[in-house]
């Protein structure tokens, strides 16, 4: 068994097709209330581009390549770190009435239960 990665032709297309399908299905279930954090979260996920930037920079052999590679890592790191920071902040704010919000919400909660 070999662990060499050889993504060419149809293998690459299969990977793309399955990943696209997975993305579509995963996001399709997200309630509208989470759309902003979700957009921000998927924004964070493509911050993985920083790994590609590191590969390019570490293999750079001219000043031009080093310069552009530096920019790639700089921007990619910004994408990943910034995307994480804002997504985490947003999601941490979502609290339910049950999360120790105090007795003043109890009446409201009962009404909801009755209705549903």
């Amino acid at each position, binding site marked *: 068994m070999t662990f060499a990665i050889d993504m060419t032709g149809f293998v690459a297309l299969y990977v793309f097709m399955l990943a696209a399908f997975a*993305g579509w299905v995963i996001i399709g279930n997200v309630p509208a209330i989470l759309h902003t954090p979700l957009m921000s979260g998927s924004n964070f996920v493509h911050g993985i581009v*920083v*790994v590609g930037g590191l590969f390019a920079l570490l293999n750079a052999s001219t000043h031009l390549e080093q310069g552009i590679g530096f920019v790639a890592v700089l921007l990619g790191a910004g994408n990943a770190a910034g995307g994480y920071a804002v997504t985490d902040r947003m999601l941490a704010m979502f609290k339910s009435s049950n999360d120790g919000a105090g007795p003043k919400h109890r009446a409201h909660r009962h009404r909801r239960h009755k209705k549903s």
Partner: protein
Amino acid sequence: MFSVVSPLVIGAADLAAAFLFMFGLKRMSSPATAASGIRVAGIGMIAAVLASFLYIFNVDAAARPHLMVNIGLAVLALGLGGAGAWFVGRKVAMTAMPQMVAIYNGMGGGAAGSIAAVELFGSRTHGATQLAVTLLGALIGAVSFSGSVIAWAKLDGVLKAPLRVKGQQFANAAMMLATLIVGGLIVAATIGGIALPIATPVLIWVFFGCALAFGVLMTLPIGGADMPVVISIYNAFTGLAVGLEGFVLQNPALMIAGMVVGAAGLLLTLLMAKAMNRSVANVLFTNFGTPAKAKPGAIKGTERPVDASDAAIKMRYATSVIIVPGYGLAAAHAQQKLYEFVKLLLAAKVTVKFAIHPVAGRMPGQMDVLLAEAGVPYDMIFQLDDINDDFATTDVALVIGANDVVNPAARTDKSSPIFGMPILNADKAHQVYVVKRGQGKGYSGIVNALFYSPNCEMVYGDAQAVLVQMIEAVRGLGAAAAA
């Protein structure tokens, strides 16, 4: 030894990262697990970034003499970019979230474009397919980068009005064509070996210049109201660019993460465009914001003003209240005051629900985030489809800082530019109060028939000031009863 083991470690870390990204996104599909979802994805990111330093054991022969410098540059870039963006992301106000998402997204696009540039300048691509994919990823990444920067500038108020000149669409098409032609020339020179009067590196510079210019030109004419759709498209674009560059670098983690985001971004874009009653092509190529000479139509009646305290007392003695917040609420920084008022109503055994339109705020779901920030529990927040039938049996609908999303003309007036847009049926409540800064039109410049309807009264004033009056009125009642 290291040169044998390190690819295995990198491969395993990237595989784990790809899994954790998808698992994390899946956990984000419910408010209860969402916060852990981003942490799961974060672990994947850290693993992948740390593992990628193992690339040093297998660098190209040409890069070996520069290795120490490159490692230093890598650490410096990671530190500067990561720490800077982290610091800003932690401090920025929640209302500024859309432009932050735009700028971080642009960075990702720029990174993908830069990777493509390194591959192109270093002539590292093998074969026509790889070269074409590199160029395509470069084009999409560069457009996403410059377009997102413009979107950021617009949302942040650096750029005020949409810039439109005659023949702009023609200019955009010409720029796109120029980019594709230059890309074709690069392929011809590199693969076909055709001798061109211009050196290939010059062509690469021109290619990126054209792509960046296209992103700017394409985004400039789009109005502020359409920016959510634009950010979402660029989010999908960046994902696609990252996926394509992942193919070029033979890195499946980039391919998978990029394509997952590309598909997710596309779906989100379509959902948003649907909520705004526009097609995506319509947003991109015909410039909204110049409303179709919105004629007042046959609206009868007048806007009737009411005192904030009278409205508050009416709500205090109501059985059920639905609140429809819009961006005006956030602009007045009045979310906290609103929740304070709501808590008073809840204490008086009034049923209170929040009704959120899909495009409330500057970005779909932004209103939910802003209410969550103010402490409103998410089980009080309802989306359009879940609450629209409740209005008819509700005593009072309180509309704060929202306008177009409650305009009944979208249901009835075929000549209205927003005809067919899904709206919140606030007009069906027994009594409607609209808190508004003054008489005037909404973001789209369309007259709102709701304001003239017999069951609607207007509370004029700044949302924050109005809510302070409302809170005082209800508290005053309690004090009077106790005395």
